[in-house]
């Protein structure tokens, strides 16, 4: 839907902390974006249904105590589960969760979403195999064109910054994910080959870095596109020229395609 202005909510609670970069990315495309604190939704001051896109940014919501994203998810569920389900069932709407946002979508049961929406989590983003927070850049191969990835080149570089990003699920669900072609990005080596640590920075099964649900309108991604929006945010810009950052293309896809 080229040119049309979307209403975007960047959700936040205490500990959310990549909201500014995310906000700036939408602003760059002149979208109608605002910060929406969960407390405002809870008190009826903001309504999810008024937005076209929900963006759940990275950070350490509520400290990531218990498990990363679990508290945010539980709270969102308690406040607006019905609205959220309606949101997902509306094919014109989009939800994207980055890093902590991905963890939240998993905990909510909106991802992997092999059958749409699940009431209980069907996967987990577990503690990295290295057992450490890892702030580093990785290479991703695009596995599929979706409304989040259509504009993205085949091989991109994005930064990760998380302690809990190992995608894990049962073998049955993993099979279904692959069958449904829900993997949007996979970690790869710099040349595009199979990723070993540190190229797969967390030990994710099947090198999964980003997933869409089976409806195609909810995406979770561990690396941070909003931190790689401009060329000068790439770590190797003194060696290699770019017009824009690789994360730019994800926002472009999201905003220019329905």
């Amino acid at each position, binding site marked *: 839907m080229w040119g049309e202005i979307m209403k975007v909510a960047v959700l936040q609670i205490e500990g959310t902390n990549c909201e500014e970069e995310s906000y700036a990315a939408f602003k760059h495309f002149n979208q109608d974006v605002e910060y929406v604190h969960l407390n405002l939704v809870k008190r009826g001051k903001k309504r999810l249904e008024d937005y076209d896109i929900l963006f759940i940014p990275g950070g350490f919501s509520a*400290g990531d105590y218990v498990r990363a994203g679990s508290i945010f998810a539980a709270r969102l569920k308690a406040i607006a589960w019905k609205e959220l389900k309606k949101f997902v069932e509306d094919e014109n709407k989009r939800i994207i969760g980055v890093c902590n946002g991905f963890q939240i979508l998993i905990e909510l049961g909106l991802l992997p979403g092999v059958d749409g929406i699940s009431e209980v989590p069907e996967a987990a983003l577990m503690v990295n195999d290295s057992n450490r927070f890892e702030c580093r*850049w990785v290479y991703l191969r695009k596995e599929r064109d979706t409304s989040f990835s259509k504009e993205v080149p085949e091989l991109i570089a994005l930064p990760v910054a998380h302690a809990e990003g190992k995608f894990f699920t049962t073998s049955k669900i993993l099979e279904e994910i692959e069958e449904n072609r829900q993997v949007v990005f996979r970690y790869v080596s710099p040349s595009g080959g199979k990723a070993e640590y540190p190229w797969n920075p967390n030990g994710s099964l099947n090198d999964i870095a980003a997933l869409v649900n089976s409806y195609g309108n909810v995406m979770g991604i561990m690396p941070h596109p909003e931190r790689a929006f401009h060329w000068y945010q790439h770590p190797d810009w003194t060696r290699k020229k770019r017009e824009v950052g690789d994360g730019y293309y994800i926002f472009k896809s999201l905003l220019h395609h329905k």
Partner: protein
Amino acid sequence: MRARELYPGVYEIDILHATDDELMEISESMGLALSMEEMRRLKDFFASLGRNPTDVEIHAIAQGWSEHCSYKSSKKVLRKYIFGIPSKHALIVMQDDAGVVEFDENHAYVFKIESHNHPSAVEPYGGAATGVGGIIRDILNMGAKPIALVDPLFFAPPDYPYEKLNPGIKHPRYLLNGVVAGIRDYGNRVGIPTVAGMTYFHEGFVNNILVNAGCLGIVRKDKIVRSRVDKPSLLLVMVGGRTGRDGIHGVNFASRILGEKSEEERQAVQLGNPILKEPLIHVILEANEMGIIKGMKDLGGGGLGSVVGEMCYSGGVTAEIYLDKVPLKEEGMAPWEIWVSESQERMLLAMEEKDLDRLREICEKWDVEMSMIGKTKEGENLELYWHGKKVLDLPLKFVTAGVEYERPYKIKKVEKMQELPVEPNYREIFLRLLSSFNIGSKEWIIRQYDHEVQGRTVIKPLQGVIGYESHGDAAIIKPLYDSWKGIAITTVANPQLGEIDPYKAALYTVDEAVRNLVSVGARPHSFSDCLNFGNPEKEEIMGEFVESCRGLGEAARFLGIPYVSGNVSFYNEAFGKNIPPTAVLMAVGIIDDIRYAVTSDFKEEGNPIYLVGETKEEMGGSEYYRLIGAKSTTVPEVDLEELRKRSEELLKAMKKGVIRACHDISQGGLAIAAAEMCLGGNIGAELDLAPLGFMRADFKLFSESATRWLCEVQRGKEKEFESIVKARKIGVVSGNTLRVRDDSRWLFNVHLNIMRERWRAALRDYVG
């Protein structure tokens, strides 16, 4: 100690009739950490009032007079050397909680570095975390948005034998792990990138580790908030965390020598709560955007007492405080405990009554507590109330202005000498240096910190080909969305030089700070200093302090770089041992256009390599001599004029775009600088040391002489470069090994993969 209960929880302490011994007993049993002289002064003062003090009053005064709050040992020296370096762009210097410096027409940057040594030695995780939390508040309370953190750290070597540890002292590995985890968990959770630091290992830190934390923020000039209030009838509102018994006597603790008993000093230890701080940052910034904050200070060392005192005293007003209005974590706290508690995550705001509801609305959105706890007023005396009863009534000046000492000092004479060891096996010694603790890769630490959150880190702490990055000299932050201007940040300290000659070490530290900033293309702009020393009551230690300050002051004054904030940490002594003098600089540079920034990694096969600066036979304090166990007191000399000239030349050449990579030469000398440049670029180099002239090859390779850089110059631009920068061509980027000869004699030839393996193993094998 004779005491009488006035009201529940409040005692009158009889000092008027106390003998000297009893005075000291009072100081001891109340945990005041005051000297005999100070106790007598206290007694005389109350004698002049004709009454005894309450316990609240005594605690309030002890707090105000602590080393930590009053800088009683250091102030005279600081004033002489460090303060008052003239600068066009410094806006607020050494007055408020952090220094404020002009960034561009409409913006200022705000920064400061501080120590959190004692708490981190006792509880590394919580100590380091609260150190980060505290320095963030210092930036925040100027109204600035915190955008970068730094963390210079000092430990004993990780292979220190367990058996040699003194009782109660934790192993450096445990401390390193805990400290890094504490900084990581706090910094990452509040969403502020940790972009620079240093990690230094030296046996002298075995009993006293040093954990310094610095923070930098950005603020619109019209939104700067002062740490003072100069109007009466403003409300004082506490925002954030509750007040508890934790952190009581933290400042007295910080001004005391660590010993076996420190294990019990639990109350001075806190864990910090980043997830209370994160929304608090939002609350403060939103309220400040509305323009409703008339003065602000964070509650750090000294708690409410020192905050109210300093905030009002510097603005020329006083205050009345209702201690019962302070929200508490636990019931039954005595008023004096509330007054001195150092519980984390609290801010005190001065504001007009009409704005209270607007603040309340913001606080509600973010689930942050607030409470009006007092008012400013005119007059001399500070008044504290407890359920309507007055429990303190004292001249603010007496409580806050504190005491000042002129401590005697002795300057140690340095006899110049230098052993000449037999020539080493070059390949072996090079690899040993590469894998030594102080030189080896710090990746294990750097990557546990989110150094990119907020998306502003345009030059990262690790630089080079993705996945192969090596050490950079400084990080660059691009603070504003619509401006190319950037802020470069680095931290520097040289304890190994300091223990030989603190004055020359200080000059060298300034030199290195400048080198690091210039390496990335930034012009040095301002400094914050964190001075970590032993017990100032010892004349030699005080001498080290004076000499360090003299060096820091002289060098910065010559270069026209002001110190805009700082911190002194004394009493880093335990079991009769003092730390080596450790003057830490957090240095900030400005780069007008980040598109001209330069990184340390070699870029391209065939580019020539140049050496800038003079290499001299100054091996004192070098990593090479430490490693082979050779002695030298001949530490590098700094020629400030050379430093200025070379820096200007390099910056000019960078602006022309002829320099592709630049790295200053520091620990490990030329050989290590070249190795790091190879590692980051994942490409080799060939060097010939003949142009350095006649000197031992090991000195050429490993000397740490000041004011030197290695530059990779764009091929074809040699003439242009040489016309701008005084430099010698010593090699070329090529192949996949680092090969070094001295004229016709080959010294070593090592493959990149071997270098990388050794370099990465340095820490990795100890930290798991």
